[in-house]
């Protein structure tokens, strides 16, 4: 029998990767999020790559639970709303409604995706935007930003 948890931990199998991203994160000094995040994702009109990247991020390869990152089943249980894509006209209202459902304190992470269809989410003047990313970032870049937001890395 293989003791995978022990072997994995002793060899630091999952820790040899550095997660890096150039996106700037604006979280106040007092740190709203204390080392743990419950995330909720909303698709507002991306080309489906970002949905797939979020799925890939949840795969055991990244093992986000060890960083205290969990996906919430409802916006009312979430600390961070991840907005995927540039909103289409029809999705602006559902997006605003979702933001209103978030409990305080909350943050918004905008991942804009590729292409210029739809509206730039920064123009919607949504509250508490903590970071915004251009293009279609890879899961490790998204994870880097999540770690910055949760205060686990600078």
């Amino acid at each position, binding site marked *: 029998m293989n003791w995978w948890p022990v072997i994995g931990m002793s060899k630091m199998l999952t820790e040899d990767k550095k997660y890096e991203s150039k996106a700037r994160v604006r979280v106040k000094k007092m740190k709203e999020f204390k080392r743990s995040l419950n995330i909720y994702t909303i*698709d507002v009109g991306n080309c489906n*790559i970002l949905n797939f990247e979020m799925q890939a991020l949840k795969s055991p390869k990244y093992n986000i639970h060890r960083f205290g990152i969990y996906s919430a089943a409802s916006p009312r249980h979430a600390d961070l709303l991840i907005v995927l894509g540039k909103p289409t006209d029809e999705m602006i209202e559902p997006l605003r409604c979702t933001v209103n459902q978030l409990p305080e304190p909350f943050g918004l992470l905008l991942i804009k995706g590729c292409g210029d269809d739809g509206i730039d989410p920064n123009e919607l003047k949504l509250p508490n935007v903590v970071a915004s990313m251009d293009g279609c970032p890879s899961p490790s870049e998204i994870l880097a930003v999540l770690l910055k937001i949760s205060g686990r890395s600078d």
Partner: protein
Amino acid sequence: MSILLAHFKSNGKEEFITQEKGGIRKESENKGFKNLELIENRNEFIVDVFNGGKIEGDGVFDFRYGPVSGIGEAGVFHLYTYGERILSVKIDTFYKRRKLDEKMIGMDVNDALKIAERVSGNFSVSHSLAFSRAIEKAMKVEVDDKTKRVRAIALELERIYNHIHVISKLASDAAQLVLASHLSELFEDSLCVNEIFSGSRYLRDFVTLGGVTKVPSDKALNSVLKEIEKNKKSFTKLYKNSMTSRNYIDRLHSTAILSARDAAMIGLTGPSLRACNVKEDLRIKDDIYKDLKIVTDEEGDALSRMEVRAKEILESMEFVENNVKKINSKETDRMTLQGKGDGLGWCESPSGAIIYSIGVEDSKIKVLHVSTPSVFGMAAMAHSIVGNIFTDFPFALDSFGVNFADAAR
């Protein structure tokens, strides 16, 4: 039996584009196709072609899934029910309508290709390949064999990761958490193979008009071969083990059954149609695919669709292994495309046929019609789920491998 996939008017004449025996044909008369209304209304909503979507009666109400919660994509499912049993389904696609096909008209062909790629990110190769084939046909250009082979490998790599994603979703729906975790890791691994092969995790910017952007280096091809071999071994083992789990099989078996006749009337193509025991694949007429075994299954339920996809993954991995050995990293000649004309291009995407009908003038797009497989996949889902209960819904939806980005364009 011919399957209607697109219908439009050009120069005052009606045109029907159908698929039959592995080929795409243009027809000028209506042969009593059932899914004409479905194709007309696809920008707004998708309904079951047999009952028209809405149903009324004592206690019947509309249960809404989406656009925010439940399905993970911007779209709405209206489930008409009196509780538990689903009587009818209507699907709203307009939430995700980005009007990409309208946007492409009037654009330069190379810019339009970039937009075609973005219609559905997980079918990037299929969309760009169908688009390029249409343009190449319009400008009467034939690409060389090596380009065809490299493109076919990219298409199969796309099929592999999409199919793994579908099966991993089905496994997690059936609460097979160990299997789902293994498969999602395999999914991430196959995205890494794509990155080695083309430089992009989703094989973006790979297919261009008249060629491919860059033929992978020998080193990249070798490591693709090694990775695919490893993935094949682990997928074979996972699939074999998963088929011994009674819980898993019972959950999928006889869920959302679809008959071959209904599927063809709806316009379903791809692995979901092959799961209804119809040997219909756009790849069979291609010389490159002459060793490919077309996988079919008999029952037309969620289990059959899963099995067809699983066997196709193995077939595609074998295809990639055989064909990577046949290419070298020498660059191919890139064609310059000029002129005008009309062309019809198609491709067997992971979920079915994608068709582009394009008219070009002065390297600008004059007319464009696109048919995407998710429209018919969703209509087939709406038909097959009738009579099933709420908890069957995720299995019905995920087993067709459809998405709103592709359906709404």
